[in-house]
C-alpha cells in the first residue's frame, strides 16, 4: 500500500466523519467557488485549480482537476499551458527573492 491511493479521492467526504458541520461549511464554500459559472467560467476555474494542484503537488487534486478540465471542454494544450503558468510562477517566486540576496550583498559591500 502507498501513502497515496487513487481510490481514496472518492473518500474525501469521509473526512467529515468528525466535525461534520465544519466539513459542510467547507463543501458549500468549495462548490460555490469552483463549481459555478460566475465572472470566470467553470472551465477557467478548473484550469486555475489544475495549475494550483501542480504548484502544491497534490495528487488528489491533479486527478480531480485533470478530469474537471476535460469535462469543462478544455484540451491538453490548454491544460499543459496551465501547468507551465504554475511552474513559471514557482520559478519566478524563487528568482525574485534574489533581490533580497542583492540587497544583502550590497549591504555587505560586495
Amino acid at each position, binding site marked *: 500500500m502507498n501513502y497515496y491511493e487513487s481510490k481514496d479521492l472518492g473518500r474525501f467526504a469521509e473526512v467529515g466523519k468528525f466535525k461534520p458541520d465544519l466539513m459542510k461549511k467547507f463543501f458549500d464554500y468549495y462548490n460555490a467557488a469552483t463549481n459555478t459559472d460566475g465572472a470566470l*467560467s467553470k*472551465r477557467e476555474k478548473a484550469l486555475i485549480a489544475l495549475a494550483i494542484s501542480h504548484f502544491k503537488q497534490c495528487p488528489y487534486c491533479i486527478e480531480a482537476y485533470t*478530469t474537471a478540465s*476535460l*469535462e*469543462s*471542454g478544455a*484540451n*491538453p*494544450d490548454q491544460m499543459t499551458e496551465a501547468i507551465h503558468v504554475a511552474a513559471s510562477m514557482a520559478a519566478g517566486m524563487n528568482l525574485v527573492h534574489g533581490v533580497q540576496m542583492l540587497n544583502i550583498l550590497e549591504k555587505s559591500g560586495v
Partner: protein
Amino acid sequence: MRDNNSAIIQNGKYNFQEKLTKNSLSLPPSSIETLQVNITLKCNQACLHCHVDSSPKRTEQMEKITVDKCLEILSNHKEIKNIDITGGAPELNPHFDYLVIEAKKLDKHVMVRHNLTITIDGDPTTGESKKYLPEFYSKHSVEVISSLPYYQEYFTDKQRGRGVFNKSIDSLKLLNDQGYGNENSDLKLDLVYNPAGAFLPASQQSLEHDFKKELWEKFGLKFNNLYTITNMPIHRFREQLERLGNYDEYMEKLINAFNPTAANGVMCRSLLSVSYDGKLFDCDFNQMLGMQIYNIEPMTVFNFDIDLLLKRKICFDSHCFGCTAGNGSSCGGATV
C-alpha cells in the same frame, strides 16, 4: 430474464431499472416520431468509441426488400415524421441514394449520420467515389449530422484515426460551399462531439460556442448546432475501458451523474431503431447489444404494429446510464 411485458431485467452490478425505481421513474414510450435505420455496418473508418464496431471489413448491408418495407412504414404512418439514416457509413449501402430520395417524396424529414471523410475517401473496398454527396445532400435538403470530436487535430485523430481531422475540414468546406451551415438556411449541418476518452462531455452550449469560434476563425467554416453525446460503455469503447482498467470507474462516474430530468428525455421514448436485417430495437445501442423488441415474437419491420410498439416496455440495461448522466445524451445531443 424477461417479464410479461418483454423487458429485460438486469440483475448485474449496475442496475439501471433499480435506479429508475428509486427515482420513481418508469419511462414508457411517448410516441414514435423517428425511425432510425442502420443500413450498413461497413465504414471507411474504425473509430475508438464506435458502439457499432464498424470498419471497412464489415459486410452487413440492408437489402432493398427491407429498405422498401421501411419506406412502406413511413408512408403508412404520418406520425413518424423523421427518418434518421445511420450505419457504419450509411452512404456505403447501395440503396442509400434511393432511400433518401424516396423518403423525401414521402415528405419526411431526412437526417443522415455522415462521417465527412466518406466524401474524401470513397468506398474502402471498391474505390467508388463519393464526391457527389455534398451536392446530393443539398439537392434533397438532407439534414447532415457529422461527428467532429474536437476543433483540433489531436483529439479528433486520436478518436477517429490519423488524418481524419484534415479530411473532415475539407469535407465541411464542400458542404459549406453547397449552402450548408448558414444561420437562416434550410440546409442544416450539425456537428457531434464525443469525448476523446473516459470523461463526460462539457456543457453543449459552451462547446458549441467554442467550436463555432474556432472553426470560423481558423478555417472559415460554419455549422448550425453542436450535439454532445456521451460515450457508451459497450463494444469497442468498453474494450478500451477494460484495457485501461477504467471500466468500473467510468460506470461509477455515469451512475453518480444520473440525472432524472435527463432520464425523462431519453430518445428511446420517441424513436425506433431498425437493424440492417429489419429487426426492431429501442435504440441503436440496444441494437448493437442484440436486445430486440419482443411481443410474443421478435418484432421486425415485417410484423410492424405501431399500437403494440407504443405499449411496449423499453428494454433497459447498464449502458443506459450513458444516456442519463449529467446533461443527458441522445442522437440529438443533451436532453436537459
